């Protein structure tokens, strides 16, 4: 037994001296648990979802919904956009659709002028959306319906009051009010739908739009959501198309972390000394490493996308040139990341440990696994600093939105920009380091 204890102690000593292993054992899970935890804590309700918004109706209910959305922390209403002349303009139906098509927000809610009139028996809203992310879209729709529905009963009741007064005259009308009041007091104790059913509101049946009506469901009758998918309706394989970019980038980062750290092996074995004692300069070695890694990254990404095409029928060829540009930019940025690790770490084990940690964190935070909007706002700020974020978004723009060159420029630019800055930092570090 003593011998076994000694052996165990030896293993613990070795483990403790292997800092990357310690890090991977504790730090990585802690950070990932924190990220996942912050998604599902707070009742799982995300904050500040961008929602384009037009209200053309004078109805009270419209005003109430606008106020409710304005004051809710779940949504951030966007009512204006900056036009070509750089001026802020209030949305109209066309510009709001464009806004969605351009990917500036995933959804728009339009309350048309005739959303709710004196003669209306239901509330008619228009909803434009870009389901570039399935989870996000389901969440937005769920939360939106919830917010609207909380406002509807009171409005409907007051409108019913007015109608009742019109039909019955003031006296009978006030009687009606009392009944309503008693019902309202009940309403707070008993399930809404039942009460409303009890009041026989369910006579509204005039549905004439292509809505997601559930027959017999009162709420679906009272709220007519006129939904239109503006983006990606023709995408052959939506789920695969949406997720391929994120996963591809994560594996790209893993690959390039590994290959960049090959510098350590070469340095340790003396091969670098051998290479540098031939007519080859350090700069040439660095260049070759960069180009090798970038080209390897391109090959890997292309193979992954091609497999996506073969297995899931992801349409990679309709916007192929832009896809290639994104592949190059993503590879360049990921290579820069790998080289940064090589420049700042002292051993390959260190670089690989730190690399694994950073790649997993960046993937979680940057939107490779789930949409970033469900993360707390301060983490969303960090998201935008990651390569994963810009790559994932860029690939979405190419494959999902079918964007042209001009429209993916921001993503190309962000990736190349990250690559340039990171490369300068690692070059500076290489110059004073010992690895080369």
């Amino acid at each position, binding site marked *: 037994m003593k011998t076994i204890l000694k052996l165990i102690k030896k293993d613990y000593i070795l483990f403790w001296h292997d800092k990357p292993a310690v890090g991977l054992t504790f730090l990585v899970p802690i950070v990932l648990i924190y990220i996942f935890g912050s998604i599902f804590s707070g009742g799982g309700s995300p904050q500040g979802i961008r929602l384009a918004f037009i209200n053309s109706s004078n109805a009270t209910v419209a005003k109430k919904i606008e106020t409710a959305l304005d004051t809710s922390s779940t949504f951030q209403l966007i009512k204006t956009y900056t036009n070509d002349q750089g001026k802020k303009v209030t949305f109209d139906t066309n510009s709001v659709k464009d806004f969605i098509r351009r990917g500036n927000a995933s959804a728009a809610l339009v309350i048309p002028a005739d959303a709710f009139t004196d003669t209306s028996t239901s509330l008619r809203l228009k909803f434009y959306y870009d389901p570039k992310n399935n989870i996000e879209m389901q969440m937005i729709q769920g939360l939106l319906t919830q917010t609207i529905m909380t406002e509807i009963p009171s409005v409907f009741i007051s409108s019913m009051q007015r109608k009742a007064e019109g039909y019955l005259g003031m006296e009978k009308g006030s009687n009606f009010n009392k009944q309503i009041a008693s019902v309202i007091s009940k309403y707070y104790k008993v399930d809404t739908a039942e009460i409303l059913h009890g009041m026989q509101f369910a006579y509204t049946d005039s549905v004439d739009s292509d809505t997601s009506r559930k027959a017999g469901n009162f709420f679906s009758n009272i709220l007519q959501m006129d939904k239109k998918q503006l983006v990606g309706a023709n995408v052959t394989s939506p789920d695969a198309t949406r997720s391929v970019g994120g996963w591809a980038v994560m594996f790209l980062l893993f690959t390039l972390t590994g290959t960049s750290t090959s510098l350590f092996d070469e340095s340790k*074995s003396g091969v670098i000394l051998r290479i540098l004692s031939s007519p080859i300069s350090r700069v040439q070695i660095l260049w070759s490493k960069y180009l090798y890694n970038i080209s390897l990254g391109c090959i890997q990404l292309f193979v992954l996308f091609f497999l996506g095409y073969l297995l899931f029928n992801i349409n990679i060829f309709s916007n192929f040139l832009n896809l290639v540009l994104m592949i190059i930019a993503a590879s360049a940025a990921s290579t820069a990341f790998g080289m940064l690790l090589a420049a700042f770490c002292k051993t390959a084990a260190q670089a690989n440990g730190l690399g694994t940690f950073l790649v997993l964190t960046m993937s979680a935070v940057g939107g490779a696994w789930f949409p970033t909007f469900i993360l707390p706002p301060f983490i969303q700020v960090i998201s935008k600093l990651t390569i994963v974020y810009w790559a994932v978004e860029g690939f979405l723009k190419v494959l999902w939105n079918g964007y042209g060159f001009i429209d993916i420029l921001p993503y190309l630019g962000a990736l190349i920009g990250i690559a340039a800055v990171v490369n300068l930092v690692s070059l500076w570090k290489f110059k004073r380091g010992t690895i080369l």
Partner: protein
Amino acid sequence: MISIKNITKKFTNITALDNISLEINEKELFGLLGPNGAGKSTLMNLLVGYINADEGEILIDGEKISIENLDIRRKIGLVPQTLALYDDLSAQDNLEIFGSFFNIKKNTLKNVVADKLNMVQLYDRKKDKVKTFSGGMKRRLNLAASLLHDPQIILCDEPTVGVDPQSRNAIFEYLIKLNEQGKTIIYTTHYMEEAERLCSRIAIIDFGKIITTGVLETLLGELHYSQTILINKNHLTEKKTGLFQTFGEIINEQDKYELKPTNKLKLSDFFASMEENGINYESIEIKKPSLEALFLHLTGRRLRD
């Protein structure tokens, strides 16, 4: 042809080389002898332009060596102290890769590689991965990989570390042959026997300073005695250390005593005394004094502490 002039090289808190000057002649087999950490590898790295010196300069045929001077490296072949090979590749692949860095034409390169593999007796194993090789085979390949561009100057940085005696002898033979073919060779080692056996002229380096340099015989002449007596350790001789001490100073080696005789010792007296004490001549060997003795004489320290 190689002039090292007042070279100083400092690392963060160590002066690895301290104002070193050396001249190495063409076609010489020059030995650089010093204990671990003396600065030998640092000097090799400077000679190949891997690092730059803080002060001083190194000229090869009048041309200055530096990190920036890439072309001059064609004249030099460095055999690094750490095995500089790709373990997962075959011997042949390794050589072809390293040869390609010198812009050797493809056809020529094939021949050169075969030639060098033959030279180090690894041709039969050319398709095998380096990681399957023994220490000695790796060292031989490490040497071959530095000769592909047929350099005029060969820098061997402790090329026999971790090597079996056969491979060591083989490496010596290759180097002697190369030297006979007119190559200039600088050979660093902390084994005095190697420097003694291989090199005509040596420099002894310690703590980044050249302690002495010159032709072996001349250096040994600095000692006050012209021969040492080696006595094998055995049950008899081990009891007689007191007796030996009457003839001179004793250095306790692993399997023998080295006796540095006093000035007036006559070998005949010594042998007579040995005979008296029953120590047979087979356990006794007369040699010229070793570098070990010289190092001790110069620094007051053993070469390998």
